[in-house]
């Protein structure tokens, strides 16, 4: 890795996040539309969730096909504690994150002994089992009928009960999440994760405790997912198990891959592309296929996923960075961010 490359990775300036936060802050005043706000809120949930998943997949190179499980754990934990036990949603949120971390720890120990195909299958199996639990533990979750009457969230009597207010809450969490992840990436842990992504054998040989770091980042990503799930539950006030099925895990995967798993901004980009494209397709496709119903937009997501991985294995965010760099007309030459042959979600493991 040459020096300019290092500089790019350890770009610690706050300019990016500040500009981003400023634009987000002003947006509801410029665009006064509840529809746009609700879309932005959806992007926020997914961005927060993908933030953790990007750390796991992009930085540590571990695949997870079961992250909707943690999303659901947060949602149900928060819903149960606030609606049935009358506790504060903030406590429910915290409890969800703790539970998600504990489950991630327990499941992570055997799962991260596996690599490649087996890791993918095991996380998939975990996702299906947790989904079944949501469906079958009717006393806690209400089963397939769903969980009704989840209270909205409030802080010192200020209720986040409309889109305008909730918009600021969710995006505050997203920005805090991004700053937090950036700090992680720039720390010893981040370097260890990158080394694991590069080569597990080599990092093991130089004394990186692979298992510990994999577990830590898995727990962290589970907590991000759980937090996002809790917030979602308090926003939408009604949840059912189908929100957290295997397909949701696959959607999350799509976002991380499209956004680019090797940049923390990829999570926001991926979530935005996913939600916006979904909305556009929902209004355009029925004009061409009048009979289309259900989740037909998955055709395009599927194709997008394949094309992205074949032609832009590092996702959209490096392309965007290139664009920004060209826009700035930096004096120093910007290195081509897509190093040939390097994949966004490469794992160091072989197939055995």
């Amino acid at each position, binding site marked *: 890795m040459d020096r300019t490359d290092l500089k790019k990775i350890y770009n610690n300036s706050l300019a990016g996040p500040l500009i981003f936060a400023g634009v987000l802050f002003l947006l509801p005043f410029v665009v006064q539309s509840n529809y746009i706000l609700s879309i932005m809120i959806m992007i926020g949930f997914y961005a927060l969730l993908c933030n953790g998943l990007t750390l796991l*997949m992009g930085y540590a*190179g571990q*695949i997870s*096909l079961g992250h909707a499980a943690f999303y659901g754990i947060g949602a149900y934990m928060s819903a149960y504690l606030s609606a049935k036990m009358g506790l504060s949603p903030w406590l429910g949120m915290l409890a969800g994150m703790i539970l998600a971390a504990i489950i991630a720890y327990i499941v992570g120990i*055997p799962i991260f*002994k*596996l690599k*490649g*195909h*087996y890791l*993918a*299958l*095991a996380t*998939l*199996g*975990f996702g*299906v*089992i947790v989904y*079944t*639990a949501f*469906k*079958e533990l009717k006393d806690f979750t209400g089963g397939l009928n769903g969980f009704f009457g989840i209270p909205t969230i409030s802080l010192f009597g200020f209720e986040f009960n409309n889109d305008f207010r909730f918009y600021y809450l969710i995006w505050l969490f997203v920005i805090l999440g991004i700053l937090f992840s950036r700090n992680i990436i720039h720390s010893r842990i981040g370097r260890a994760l990158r080394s694991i992504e590069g080569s597990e*054998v080599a990092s093991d040989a130089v004394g990186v405790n692979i298992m510990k770091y994999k577990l830590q980042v898995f727990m962290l990503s589970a907590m991000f997912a759980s937090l996002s799930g809790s917030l979602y539950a308090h926003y939408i006030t009604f949840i059912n198990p189908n929100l957290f099925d*295997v*397909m949701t895990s*696959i959607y999350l*995967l*799509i976002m991380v*891959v499209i956004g680019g798993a090797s940049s923390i901004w990829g999570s926001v980009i991926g979530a935005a592309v996913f939600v916006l494209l979904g909305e556009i397709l929902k209004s355009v496709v029925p004009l061409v*296929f009048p*009979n*289309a*119903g*259900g*989740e*037909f*937009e*998955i*055709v*395009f*997501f*599927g*194709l*997008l*996923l*394949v094309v992205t*991985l*074949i032609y832009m*294995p590092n996702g959209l965010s490096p392309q965007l960075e290139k664009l920004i760099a060209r826009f700035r007309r930096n004096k120093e030459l910007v290195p081509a961010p897509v190093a040939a*042959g390097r*994949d*966004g*979600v*490469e*794992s160091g*493991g*072989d*197939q*055995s």
Partner: protein
Amino acid sequence: MEILSQVLQLLFSGLTVGSIYALIAIGFVVIYNVTGVLNFAQGEFAMFGAMICISLVGMGLPLLAAVILTILIVSVIGGLFERLAIYPARNSSVPTLIIITIGVSIAFRGIAILIWGTQPYALQPFTENNPIRILNAVLLPQNLWAIGISLVSVFAMVYFFNKTYIGKAVTACVVNKFAARLMGINPEKMSLLSISMSAGIGALAGIVIAPISGASYGMGMMLGMKAFVAAVIGGLTNAPAAILGAFLIGILESFTEGLWSSGLKDAVSFAMLLLILFLKPEGLFAKASGKRV
């Protein structure tokens, strides 16, 4: 007597479902062996098989012609899938290839929605479906068709891989791609061949199950995932073990459904998957061997 007939009944339905899983699992194992790709789109071939066959029969084609034509069409789809998605990415890492096949699988589902919509369809049974009674348990001829077709296909596959020239060439690529290339076998061609063949077998599985449990755009995912479990029981590389695994999963599911709860059957299969992955990742029937690092 009552218990015996119930057990027999569950066994019948387990074997039926197991035979469907077996057909799909063979496809997995063949593709995995030849290309090293774990194909998440395998279940969708079964879905295409069922849906296309139903459409062709609906157009007035006789069943046998529809079945053959369907298998051909799905094989072509499989070939296109190999050329357009797997071949360009053949040098990518394992997770990348996995995610590509996931992308293809949901694209296939979406295409099915656009063509057939979300409503379920049915296919008439292959022959008159008068129930056969054995010790008070009911066996439908269509179940026999399912089990019979899967067994015949299994033997055909064994024959193909061990006795025919092309089959031996594919096997050679599995054993040692480099050496096979030196012998004048083109592994890329074999990869194309094996994927379209697996797609064809998958289509057959879909056609066979369509009269039993109906067909819809979303049927492929669960079928595919169950076949995964079966393939993992066989250690991913061993086709006969995967077939045993498929029957095991089928029977396990039917007994879970019959004696416990139908909502739990998926969880039980996947709990089995996790147990095997954690305790015996080389498969249940594997001989002890040194592990490649």
